[in-house]
């Protein structure tokens, strides 16, 4: 037993604890505990009424037993009885037991709440504090219901003791977090803000947590807190280290309060009032200056407290992202920490720099530390620090240093901890794609990735390399040569076989001229891997073989032989068997022309956002992908990362119904327009079950055009937001319903939409007004909000109105402008007329400017369409061209309509 036993020495309890500690085995301990439980139970059930002291002792023993990890199913009533004791320690133990072992037994909750109510109204500050602690510790809904209105009163009452105020503030915070609906704002709200001015530092420290939480939900009601917080902070920052007496911690004045003040300020934009802002900037500068001063103490507590404030100040500077000078200074400071002997500081500096890298003001400054960060990745002994270094390299990467960073990350991968490999692989793949100028480098990088960490290369990664090779013909020959070489390795990863199979199947011909990689050599190389592979890979290889038959007729006999052997044609796996049978049949029945058509090279994949990026985002949640990332992917959208996101599967393969994905797309739609009627019947015979499926719709890179002939649908979609439209038109009036759906689980803030009519479209041509109130500024995760737009067409028009949407997602501003699909044809009225009437009218509109004509290539397969009204269409089947002729009384209408309709075929 320890020598010190302050306060109430409950000897019985001490003896019991000693006994437990002396138990040699788990069994002995359980035996001792069971004995004790029996004893306590008999005492509680006994006829003799227990005095308060014994009750307290037994309740305390039960608590000890519970904290050892055993279940306790009695004693609650005795604990509740202790609450109404007027002896402080009995009450205290009672409350402790309730706090630790609370359960929602309704009968008990009522009794507990009664006891709390009594103590709250006792005006004895120690009792009040105990009751408030209990509410804060339990924080249940029932307690919120009982006390949510009482506590604000205690908090702001003039005669409440400081210690009670402190407890009341944090107690209210807890209730607000569990049941925000029950804590009603009111007259007390403004008085709470003024607690920031309180004389007592402890009161400020407690109250500010509450204020921070409340102002996040009600920023406007609490915005006076900004100037109060700035002046409080300024007083602390400029005070001498002894001014604040006991609130100075190792020569640092009020570190906790300072951090909380800086945190509160992060709930708001920079102060608008120039004086307040000036004062705040001064504070931030002082904090940065102090970091350069020699330490006042060698103790780690001193530097930790000082740096805690510094990091919080840097967070605020990053949050404002508007003071280039401060951002660069912050970056330099963190740069010093990168080489600090304290591991903790190195870790935090790497972490904080990651966010600095995404600010345009400090991105360059962060980049200057690249060598140090690479060194950290190589030499840090703690994996969590290395992980931070890898994150920072990813964040600071741009076109200028991509090759170096990717090379370092690749070499780190060879020894990286298993826990972070998959994420590293994704990051390398994304950087390689995003910053590839020369695509042979990209191909090399991804193949290296598969070689080094094949197991961690997810499908998205190797799908993506194939998409890119297919879409860029300048890299196809190189890719074929490189995979061919990579496959020479005696043991290569299955993912390499997949990529190799696919690429040689498509582009093997590009290297077939070299006798060292002749068709047969290629085939034998692939087939040598076949038996070591899983079913999906084998299925892919079979498809590659049939492609070989088309590419290299000289391999036909060999391949047919392979397909014909029992292990293929009678394979127990249905998918493999079916492929073998069908491919064998196809290769023997179909003419070379048919074969060439069916097995034609894959058409380019539609450009869209990288599926890998989507995966990384999903993995890390919002915020993990830096701001620049999102913006970059928008900027470079034209190149590789297109607008919409269709999820990884569809992104990779046009249609892949089963895991044994048919990479060559034979079973689904053949490339668009590649199935002339003559081959059609034969194809259907061979693949009777696989009817032609419509090619997947193009990416909604321009949702506008898809609405020319329809009124409802999805106008826009990316991984954050979906915008749907429903519209109806009658004569010259239209009404459009816009639905904004938040696809993430995170709230969108400051959500605003504006509709504008560019140029002459303005008012006199088309009047548009939003008839409902502006949309809510907050869109909860997963929620959808609606907006109605009334439109009146005054005269004909050609431009479309623009819809601008702005919102903040995870701190990053998203800005989006879309053309609203309001087109002239929406306001047309159908007219019935006979063909002779039609031609008569047609001839009347004979002035040259009344006619608009366009000849264009079909985007979709042809279908004989009947076009009514004043539209004549000549279809020239052989050239797959359309000629569209329109005549309208107004020349501008003809022109516009012609443009619109031309895109629809």
């Amino acid at each position, binding site marked *: 037993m320890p020598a010190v036993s302050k*306060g109430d020495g409950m000897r019985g309890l001490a003896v019991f604890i000693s006994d437990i500690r002396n138990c040699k085995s788990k069994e002995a301990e359980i035996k001792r505990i069971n004995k004790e439980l029996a004893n306590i139970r008999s005492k509680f059930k006994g006829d003799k009424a227990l005095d308060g002291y014994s009750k307290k002792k037994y309740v305390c023993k039960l608590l000890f037993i519970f904290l050892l990890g055993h279940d306790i199913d009695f004693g609650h009533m005795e604990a509740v009885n202790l609450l109404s004791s007027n002896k402080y320690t009995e009450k205290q133990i009672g409350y402790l037991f309730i706090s630790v072992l609370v359960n929602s037994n309704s009968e008990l909750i009522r009794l507990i709440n009664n006891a709390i109510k009594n103590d709250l109204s006792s005006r004895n500050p120690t009792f009040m504090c105990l009751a408030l602690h209990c509410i804060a510790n339990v924080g249940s809904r029932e307690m919120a219901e009982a006390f949510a209105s009482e506590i604000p009163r205690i908090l702001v009452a003039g005669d409440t003791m400081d210690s009670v105020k402190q407890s009341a503030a944090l107690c209210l915070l807890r209730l607000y977090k569990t049941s925000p609906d029950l804590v009603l704002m009111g007259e007390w709200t403004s008085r709470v803000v003024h607690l920031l001015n309180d004389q007592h530092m*402890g009161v400020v420290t407690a109250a500010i*947590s509450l204020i921070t939480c409340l102002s996040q939900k009600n920023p406007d009601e609490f915005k006076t807190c900004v100037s109060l917080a700035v002046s409080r902070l300024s007083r602390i920052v400029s005070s001498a280290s002894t001014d604040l007496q006991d609130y100075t911690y190792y020569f640092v004045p009020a570190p906790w309060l300072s951090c909380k003040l800086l*945190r509160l300020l992060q709930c708001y934009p920079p102060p608008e009032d120039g004086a307040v802002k000036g004062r705040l900037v001064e504070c931030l500068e002082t904090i940065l200056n102090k970091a350069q001063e020699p330490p006042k103490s060698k103790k780690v507590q001193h530097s930790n407290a000082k740096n805690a404030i510094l990091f919080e100040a840097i967070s605020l500077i990053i949050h404002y992202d508007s003071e280039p000078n401060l951002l660069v200074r912050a970056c330099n400071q963190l740069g010093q920490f990168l080489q600090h002997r304290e591991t903790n500081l190195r870790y935090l500096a790497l972490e904080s720099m990651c966010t600095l890298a995404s600010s345009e003001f400090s991105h360059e400054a962060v980049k200057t530390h690249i060598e140090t960060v690479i060194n950290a990745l190589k030499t840090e002994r703690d994996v969590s620090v290395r992980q931070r270094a890898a994150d920072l390299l990813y964040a600071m990467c741009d076109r200028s240093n991509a090759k170096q960073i990717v090379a370092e990350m690749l070499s780190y991968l060879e020894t990286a901890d298993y826990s972070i490999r998959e994420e590293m692989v994704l990051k390398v793949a994304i950087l390689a794609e995003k910053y590839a100028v020369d695509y042979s480098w990209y191909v090399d990088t991804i193949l290296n990735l598969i070689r080094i960490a094949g197991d961690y290369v997810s499908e998205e990664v190797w799908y993506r390399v194939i998409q890119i090779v297919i879409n860029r013909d300048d890299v196809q020959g190189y890719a074929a040569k490189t995979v061919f070489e990579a496959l020479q390795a005696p043991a290569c990863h299955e993912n390499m076989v997949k990529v190799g199979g696919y690429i040689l199947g498509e582009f093997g011909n590009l290297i077939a001229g070299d006798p060292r990689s002749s068709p047969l050599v290629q085939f034998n190389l692939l087939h040598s891997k076949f038996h070591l592979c899983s079913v999906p890979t084998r299925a892919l290889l079979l498809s590659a073989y049939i492609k070989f038959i088309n590419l290299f007729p000289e391999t036909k006999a060999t391949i047919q032989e392979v397909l014909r052997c029992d292990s293929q044609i009678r394979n127990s796996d249905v998918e493999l068997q079916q492929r073998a049978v069908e491919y064998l049949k196809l290769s023997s029945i179909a003419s070379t022309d048919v074969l060439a058509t069916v097995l034609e090279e894959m058409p380019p994949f539609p450009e869209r956002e990288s599926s890998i990026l989507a995966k990384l985002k999903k993995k890390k949640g919002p915020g993990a992908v830096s701001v620049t990332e999102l913006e970059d992917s928008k900027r470079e959208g034209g190149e590789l990362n297109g607008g919409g996101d269709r999820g990884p599967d569809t992104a990779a393969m046009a249609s892949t119904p089963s895991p044994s994905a048919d990479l060559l797309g034979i079973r689904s739609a053949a490339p668009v327009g590649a199935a002339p009627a003559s081959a059609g019947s034969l194809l259907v015979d061979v693949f009777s079950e696989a009817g032609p499926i419509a090619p997947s719709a193009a990416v909604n890179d321009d949702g506008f055009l898809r609405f020319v002939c329809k009124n409802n649908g999805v106008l826009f979609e990316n991984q954050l937001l979906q915008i749907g439209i429903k519209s109806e038109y009658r004569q010259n009036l239209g009404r459009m319903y816009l639905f904004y759906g938040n696809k993430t689980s995170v709230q969108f803030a400051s959500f605003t939409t504006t509709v504008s009519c560019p140029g002459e479209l303005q008012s006199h041509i088309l009047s548009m007004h939003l008839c409902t109130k502006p949309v809510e500024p907050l869109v909860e995760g997963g929620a959808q909000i609606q907006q109605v737009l009334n439109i009146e067409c005054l005269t004909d028009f050609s431009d479309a109105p623009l819809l601008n949407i702005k919102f903040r997602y995870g701190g990053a501003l998203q800005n989006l402008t879309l053309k609203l699909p309001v087109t002239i044809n929406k306001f047309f009225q159908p007219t019935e007329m006979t063909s002779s009437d039609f031609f008569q009218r047609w001839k009347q509109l004979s002035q040259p400017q009344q006619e608009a004509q366009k000849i264009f290539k079909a985007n979709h397969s042809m279908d004989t369409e009947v076009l009514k009204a004043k539209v004549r269409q000549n279809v020239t089947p052989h050239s797959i061209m359309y000629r569209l002729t329109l005549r309208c009384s107004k020349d501008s209408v003809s022109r516009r309509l012609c443009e619109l309709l031309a895109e629809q075929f």
Partner: protein
Amino acid sequence: MFSLISSFQMQFMLLFSRQGKLRLQKWYVPLSDKEKKKITRELVQTVLARKPKMCSFLEWRDLKIVYKRYASLYFCCAIEDQDNELITLEIIHRYVELLDKYFGSVCELDIIFNFEKAYFILDEFLLGGEAQETSKKNVLKAIEQADLLQESFDEQLHSVLTTVTDTL
């Protein structure tokens, strides 16, 4: 810029020994007993496996763990990803100082035998996972006041119960 800022709310605090015995547990978020036990088991294992010179912070599930070892005891706090690690480290230190001052060079045994005091001190210092009172003097004053109430009561008790055995 808008993002949800948490205000240093600690999720939970655990004290455990080098042997992995849990000495104190304080949960500031509602969890079932089963979850609590699972978290404790996992975390004790993870932290004990770390080497002395390693960083005091680690990412664990969605949370950040801040821990520090004092003699035979590990103090371990879970905070949210955005929270300030260094100030949390000093929360731990201040709590250790409070225990030290109260018990007079505190050791693990003090916390075992006076576990209820360890909880009371913690409640005075942190409430609902937020710092309530950071002044050492003020926290100890509150605790000592309670002890004074107790001692006067103990004296009365002793006069009555001197002969009654109090070992059960």
